[in-house]
């Protein structure tokens, strides 16, 4: 009887010891493994944080550089020579859109053999001058078109008043943004290369731009 109790006691001791060891050892092992993983992860997160910070700094610098180039407050004109639209923009904002006329894209040959191709030039221009009641100095093609003899340069016969509307914006090389008496043709390719506008649109554009305003023709 006594022996039996002693054996039982021994068995219970062993059982408790085994449970104790298992319970104390297992969490310790798990802790060890997770500690090394946590360490690695911590290091990786730190490296990722550094990379994100570096990218943020670089992007902020680039953004600043691009914003400086943007001159958001500057007004500019855009002429769509295919769609015959003139748009007045400021930054990404459209201030006004007008129907315009652009070059006919047709060619002409004079009896003398001289050839002309009536196309609105494309690219980046600047308003070089602003005119009120502009005069038209008739170019050679204007005489050739009507089979008239071409007068010498500077001939007073070349000066024509009242055909370009109330205002004109000079773009250079003889090209202008001006008015027209052919209002019904606005929205089509009918000019000899200049950009034509209706009276109200012309006045608005003239009053809004200054010398140096950028004009983009495409």
């Amino acid at each position: 009887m006594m022996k039996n109790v002693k054996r039982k006691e021994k068995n219970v001791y062993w059982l408790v010891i085994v449970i104790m060891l298992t319970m104390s050892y297992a969490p310790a092992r798990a802790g060890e493994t997770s500690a090394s993983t946590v360490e690695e992860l911590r290091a990786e997160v730190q490296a990722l944080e550094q990379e994100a910070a570096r990218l943020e700094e670089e992007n902020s610098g680039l953004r600043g550089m691009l914003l400086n180039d943007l001159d958001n407050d500057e007004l500019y004109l855009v002429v769509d020579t295919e769609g015959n639209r003139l748009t007045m923009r400021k930054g990404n904002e459209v201030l006004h859109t007008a129907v315009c006329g652009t070059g006919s894209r047709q060619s002409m040959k004079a009896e003398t053999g001289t050839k002309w191709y009536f196309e609105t030039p494309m690219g980046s221009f600047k308003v070089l001058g602003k005119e009120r009641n502009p005069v038209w100095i008739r170019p050679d093609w204007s005489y050739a078109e009507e089979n008239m003899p071409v007068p010498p340069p500077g001939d007073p016969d070349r000066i024509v008043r009242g055909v370009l509307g109330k205002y004109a914006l000079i773009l250079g090389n003889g090209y202008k943004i001006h008015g027209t008496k052919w209002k019904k043709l606005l929205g089509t390719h009918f000019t000899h290369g200049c950009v034509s506008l209706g009276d109200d649109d012309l006045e608005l554009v003239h009053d809004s731009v200054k010398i140096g305003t950028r004009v983009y023709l495409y």
Partner: protein
Amino acid sequence: MRNSKCEARNIRNKIVGLFLLLAVFLPGAGAGDQGSGELAALEERQKSLRSKIEALRDEQDFLLFQKSMYSADSKYLILNIRKNTGQLKYKNRLLKDFHFVPSKNFPAGALKPGMLVLTKKIEDKNKRPALMFGSSFILQGKKRKPSPEQAKLPYISVTKRDMRSLFFAVEEGALAYIVR
């Protein structure tokens, strides 16, 4: 009999003592729980940082593209496939805004943000223009029927007027940038 009762009490006491000892070891198990909590938090942070870095890299790529185009002398397109809007730009200037409608097979989800090259300007027999960006997609006017070899390609449609303007404005080799 009394002796055996006494023995049993003795054993019980010893067992209780051993369990008390065990209780001293148990807090170690709590450390494991704490570690796994931190592990989960770090994994979450790692995931969010990775997606943030990806977004920042995309943004940087776009900013660098714009920087290079500001000093280039050619017009380019920016296509926002999330908003279905496009822009025609020259240097730092916006020349034209437009909306587009993607075709049913347009891979908006699969198309990654980045640069594309206008590989071909095409006009069908009715002179309806389109811009082909490699094997990625075609930019075309509404109701344009593509040729059989182009029919498999996804496309985005703009109004006829916008299409004519865009077609006239850009040359083969011009760049487009896809943004989301």
